[in-house]
């Protein structure tokens, strides 16, 4: 009886000690973190193109800083910009930089390039795999409906190794307004003198069928022999859709890969120093894939309008994104920011202030 009782007491004692240790550890851990930063919730949103990468970043950052909760809503660049202007988003993701009139109406917004992407010309031609050679003029003529057959002499001339079929070309493009369309048409406007449709998130296409989103273009392309469309690089890669090599300014036909896209971003760095919004398509350079674009995070320079803890969280997160965050890019098929661009992004982030004091 007494033995039993003694055993009971020691059990209670053991449980008590364990509980005390746990509480002490908890308090220690909590005060450690509290010492470093205040809890904060950051709400952001915008472009759907970088969404997979940004959501990876927010979850990884949350593992390192459990008190900081960051959510990014994939609502599209336009809605992201409007959310930032209305200050319902603490930062926004956008595939295209702000226009002059937007900047005039909403001054004091920083552009931070956070990653980029390549836009590939994907096709569905029976028995022809990846790697057909194309030039900007040929792509322009195809998407304007001036070249209508795959065995057109212009295509055959730069693809002597391929037996091109006598097959009609079906142009498949985006029906929804999209940063991908913007990047693609900006490239054609820059690189080809025959392109007449201008550039923008939607253009007035004279031919072809419109499909919604990268997924719509990809699925329409897969069931349309003779189809050609433009897709984000990672989308074509993941779905094993064949895509073309494109002639760059150095006269090389370059296959879109993470490294050739990253080279394009690096080649654009000198332009960005003078104007962060500079168009980066069709960059010269060895091994550069010409249809490469940046995607940006937009954030107000002066974050005094939000609680200080949140402002610090935004600044620290963005700083982490352009440094440690870049190590997650390539596994998700996004190019890593070249160091020259990271330096520019750093310079921009250092302009973030709270009540006149720099945040970084």
């Amino acid at each position, binding site marked *: 009886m007494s033995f039993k009782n003694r055993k009971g007491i020691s059990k209670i004692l053991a449980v008590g000690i364990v509980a005390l240790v746990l509480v002490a550890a908890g308090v220690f851990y909590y005060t450690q973190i509290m010492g470093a930063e205040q809890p904060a919730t950051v709400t952001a949103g915008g472009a759907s193109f970088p969404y997979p990468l940004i959501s990876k970043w927010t979850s990884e950052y949350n593992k390192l800083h459990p008190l900081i909760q960051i959510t990014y809503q994939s*609502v*599209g*660049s*336009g*809605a992201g*910009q*409007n959310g930032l202007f209305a200050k319902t988003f603490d930062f926004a993701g956008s595939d295209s930089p702000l*226009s002059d009139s*937007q900047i005039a109406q909403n001054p004091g917004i920083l552009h931070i390039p956070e990653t980029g992407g390549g836009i590939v010309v994907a096709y569905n031609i029976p028995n022809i795999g990846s790697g057909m050679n194309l030039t900007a003029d040929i792509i322009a003529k195809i998407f304007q409906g001036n070249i209508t057959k795959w065995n057109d002499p212009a295509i055959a001339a730069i693809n002597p190794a391929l037996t091109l079929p006598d097959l*009609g070309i*079906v142009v498949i493009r985006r*029906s*929804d*307004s*999209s940063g991908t369309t913007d990047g693609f048409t900006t490239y054609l406007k820059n690189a080809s003198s025959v392109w007449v449709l*201008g*550039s*923008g*998130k*939607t*253009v*007035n*296409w*004279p*031919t*072809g*069928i*419109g*499909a*919604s989103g990268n997924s*719509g273009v990809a*699925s*329409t392309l897969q*069931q*349309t022999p003779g189809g050609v469309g433009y897709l984000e690089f990672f989308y074509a890669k993941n779905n094993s859709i064949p895509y073309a090599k494109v002639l760059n300014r150095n006269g090389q036909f370059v296959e879109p890969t993470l490294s050739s896209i990253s080279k394009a971003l690096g080649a654009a760095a000198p332009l960005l120093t003078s104007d962060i919004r500079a168009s980066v398509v069709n960059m010269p350079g060895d091994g550069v894939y010409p249809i490469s674009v940046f995607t940006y995070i937009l954030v107000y320079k002066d974050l005094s309008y939000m609680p200080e803890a949140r402002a610090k969280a935004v600044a620290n997160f963005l700083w982490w994104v352009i440094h440690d965050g870049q190590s997650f890019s390539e596994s998700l098929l996004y190019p890593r920011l070249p160091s020259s661009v990271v330096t520019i992004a750093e310079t921009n982030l250092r302009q973030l202030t709270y009540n006149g004091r720099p945040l970084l």
Partner: protein
Amino acid sequence: MNKKSIFFKDSAFKYLVGGASMVVVGFFAMIFVMLAIRSYPSIVNDPLMVFGSTWDVNSGIFGGLPAIMGTLASSAIAVAFAIPISLGMSVFFTEYAPRRVRAALSVVIDIMATIPSVIFGIWGLWIIAPLVKNYVQEPIIGSIGFIPLFSGPAYGLSLFLASLVLTFMIVPIISSLTISLLSSTPAELREAMISLGATRWEVVRHVALPFSKLGIFAAIILALGRALGETMAVTMVIGNSFMWPFSSVSLFSPASTITSKIASELYEAVDMLHVSSLIELGLILLVITLTVNFSARLIITRISRRGATQ
């Protein structure tokens, strides 16, 4: 005292149900006013947007005619396809189908009416589009493609496919209403006809159909309303080209509708005039559906009045 409380309860009830109907009226007014206010800049910018055939966001040109034509054409074709299918099915159901077949058919009709439109869209995009392209468009273009209405090339995704998918979406609406109308034909009339030696066809032709024609007409108008406003499925299968009916009048060309245009562009529209033009398209659609409904009502009252005086 007792009487007063009953009176009070009654009037409270009256205000309650009256309030419920005011909510509907209020919502409708709010939608109309919102559309009118937000489309004002676009109306001022180009009062003739309804007749413009070019939609070029970068040049700030917004013409809505292709979308309006696409909406009207796809709905009209769908209704034209759906009427014979639904009427045939309803007559078979009420006159010929054995009890078991009838039970199975009514389950199928009910289920079809509840399938979400995005499912119809996926089905149209992945399953029907290749079939239509290979077995309908290519043979037709091959044989009578010289007629502009059936000219090539065969894309699969087209005005024709959108009309077809819409047909499948509105057949259950028309047929379920028609079935209940046909089955409510007074038994005396039916029996009288049969006793005179009429065939089933004659019973349907001379009793059941005339008896329910107003109701069937109303069912078709309801279906037309659904077809005019359908967004998701149409956006997925129509091909979203703003060229029809100007560069090509072919039924096999990709086209666009008011709803598909709004759904495709509104989220990313930044330019104020662009947003406003899309909203004006919405206003136009509302006016179209209202016109359809009012003229349908007018026709129904005309016909029923004529029926009464005869």
